[in-house]
């Protein structure tokens, strides 16, 4: 039976170079494992991985698409990172994204008679509130009743997914095509495009802005201080006078709201209507992004772009090499596991047992 042949010895401190190198080492290892899987599929891993990067960065089209994919990922990544910083384990970014998308669609198809810039702000606001409220339920349950947040946030994803499907197959079903999707939102509510002849839209600016705001909040506000303190030691925080309950609730609201903005972006900036598949799992990718980025806004930004590259590049790669684009999902899962395994090295050194 497997018995540890190595011993884990507690470390005193983590050398800085290690902290910076960790995400890269994790990516490297994850590429190695993914390559093995590609080999099993009978394809060449080197050309496959090369074509991922080429597809995402080597052409104008690819680069534009990478930016398009990065947009929701930045938001879900920072949403999850924000929550994790305060030890609120938000696995529900996917559902909060849908909540935001739902609210934005409602506002968008209501055809209000207001100028464009107000309309866009309206969509962002209702999307933020919807996402925030969707996260508030598990947040409140955790703060007041100590209910496990991992499971509750996860379950909320399924609930809203069914809600969205019910609405799209019911009252919001497109009467012309009869498909389960909403009608188009008012043109006044559409996000402007950032670059000509591309799909890159205003949502990217929103994402970058939010990352900046989160950075400010965490580092420069009282709330950010509370969140960091609770994330480090909830017991001491309570002893030292920090209102842990209130902080957890606010954390869940903000985190959910940010994820909601991701949904707004996809509706108002990319598809202009709501469909059941508006997110192929951006909320879950956000979790891996948050961890890969070390819960640090800059790191999250880089990690979001990394996964945007992977997802976009994988599409290209599948056409070029015949390796299905789902390799991106595999890379995502392996990266999380590798990161997790490596994080143990923050606390412990591995020593061989004599």
């Amino acid at each position: 039976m497997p018995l540890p042949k190595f011993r884990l010895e507690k470390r005193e401190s983590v050398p800085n170079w290690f902290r910076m190198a960790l995400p890269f080492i994790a990516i490297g290892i994850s590429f190695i494992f993914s390559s093995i899987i590609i080999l099993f599929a009978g394809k060449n891993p080197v050309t496959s991985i090369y074509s991922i990067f080429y597809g995402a960065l080597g052409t104008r089209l690819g680069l534009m698409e990478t930016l398009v994919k990065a947009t929701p990922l930045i938001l879900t990544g920072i949403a999850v990172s924000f929550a994790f910083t305060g030890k609120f384990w938000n696995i529900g970014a996917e559902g909060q994204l849908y909540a935001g998308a739902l609210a934005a669609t409602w506002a968008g198809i209501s055809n209000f008679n207001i100028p464009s810039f107000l309309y866009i702000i309206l969509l962002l606001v209702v999307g933020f509130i919807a996402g925030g409220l969707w996260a508030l339920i598990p947040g409140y349950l955790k703060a007041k009743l100590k209910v496990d947040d991992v499971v509750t946030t996860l379950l909320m994803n399924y609930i809203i997914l069914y809600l969205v499907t019910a609405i799209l197959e019911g009252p919001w079903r497109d009467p012309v095509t009869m498909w389960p999707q909403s009608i188009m939102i008012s043109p006044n509510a559409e996000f402007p495009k950032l670059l000509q002849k591309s799909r890159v839209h205003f949502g990217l600016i929103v994402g970058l802005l939010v990352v900046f705001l989160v950075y400010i909040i965490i580092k420069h506000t009282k709330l950010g201080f509370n969140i960091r303190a609770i994330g480090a030691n909830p017991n001491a925080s309570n002893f030292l006078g920090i209102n842990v309950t209130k902080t957890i609730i606010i954390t869940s609201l903000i985190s959910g709201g940010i994820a909601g903005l991701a949904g707004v972006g996809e509706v108002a900036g990319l598809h202009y209507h709501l469909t059941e598949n508006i997110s192929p799992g951006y909320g879950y990718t956000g979790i891996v992004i948050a961890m890969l980025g070390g819960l640090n806004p800059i790191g999250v930004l880089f990690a979001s772009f990394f996964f945007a590259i992977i997802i976009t590049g994988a599409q290209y790669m599948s056409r070029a090499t015949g390796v299905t684009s789902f390799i991106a999902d595999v890379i995502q899962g392996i990266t999380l596991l590798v990161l997790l395994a490596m994080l143990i090295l923050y606390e412990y050194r591995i020593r061989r047992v004599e």
Partner: protein
Amino acid sequence: MDEIVLMKNIKKRFPGVLANDGIDFYANKGEIVSLLGENGAGKTTLMKILYGLYTKDSGEIFIKGKKVEINSPKDAINLGIGMVHQHFTLVNPFTVTENIILGLSSNRFIINIETSKEKIKEYMKKYEIFVDPDAKISELSVGEKQKVEILKILYRDIDILILDEPTAVLTPQEVKELFKTLKILKEEGKTIIFISHKLYEVLEISDRIIVLRNGKVSGERDPKKTNRRELAALMVGKEVFDVISLTPSEQKDVILDLKEITALSYRGHIALKNINLNVKGGEIVGLAGVSGNGQKELEEIISGIRKPLKGKIFFKNIDITHTTPKERINLGIGRIPEDRMDLGLILDLPVFENLVVECYDKNPFSGKLFLNYPKIESYSKKLIEEFDIRTPNLIVKTKTLSGGNLQKCILARILSMNPEFILAAQPTRGLDVGATEFIHKKLLEVRDKGGGVLLISEDLDEILNLSDRILVIYNGEIMGELKRGELTREDIGLMMTGTKKEDLHATT
């Protein structure tokens, strides 16, 4: 007499403290030997070495005349040694029977509860320890749980039983029953090593008493030929020491007042019974006592993280019984917690943030939303200088600091807010002389400026050096109050081990 256990010249060092400094210990077959001493005297360490939970640095152990190496509890059990710890190792939802047969190598694939039950009942009859074998552990009283622990050991045919502070959580009735059991075990030829700090009990039950102090054996006595006073002296030392002359301070009004406080512990038993105590401005009140007699719960009640079952707390005549920690901080209550690393500081945060963590939300350190880092940093720099906190810079993570400097952080943080009252729980535990003196100086300063200090400490010297008034706590009750210099160390030692002040003269 048949020597069954012999430990020669046992040495064991932990970072910062020499727990066992060349201890010689022996036990005879069929004898009840007590190991007496304060916390930190080295008794539990010595026995954990015997049971294989710790490895000795040097020394030899002989069991039944043969030299042995004990590297794990399994080795100890194979040699016939069993230990009942202070914190029970029982599986709560299991029945008594299941707990007793758990992990036995003689268990078959399919367990037969009935046969095991019968065998257990035989053991119960033999040793006259009776518990319902079908009862769930969660339904049992503390005394009954202890019986299960003892049965667990006996069932494994152990000859040498080590009991670590077994009466700490028992009622007087249960103590009587335990002693009856121990006498029966003795008659059956078992050897019992009884670790305790309670003089009454040790005198009642032992055949021989060994007293440890500061990692060494300070004396061995025959209970029939000694008394409590002598034992107390061996435990805490007899030296007449120079009372540091404190300038008599002006006693002001009562600042902190605890009235009839009764409270539970985490384990669910009554930890504080009707405590009445107060602290006035301009004085240091020292609370002496062996750890585990309610000090932790008292600290939590005053800190605001535990609610009393009964009673009230007043701060300058305001009822603060139901206030939050933050409210107490704002009122001017400073708390130095016993657990400095897990409660007093957030180790993963940088030093300067820990220095302001109780006041960062007020002017000038922050506005409505934002923190004023320049202000916070310059303030922290000042504190670091003033308190001589050794740190490479402001922004390193607090966990890199040494013990003394950690405590200085806490002190600096509290004192910078000019509290009117300070609760200091074990403030110098594990610190070197320099850091200790520094902290003492600061506490005295608070007193001299008119503030009140409640000093909870296991270190009797510290209490005697600093306090204007001394209270002694034992088993959740105050045994008595004395003024500086009023009583000797021995007397206080007696109070710490169960004698009420009014009964002191009757101890010879």
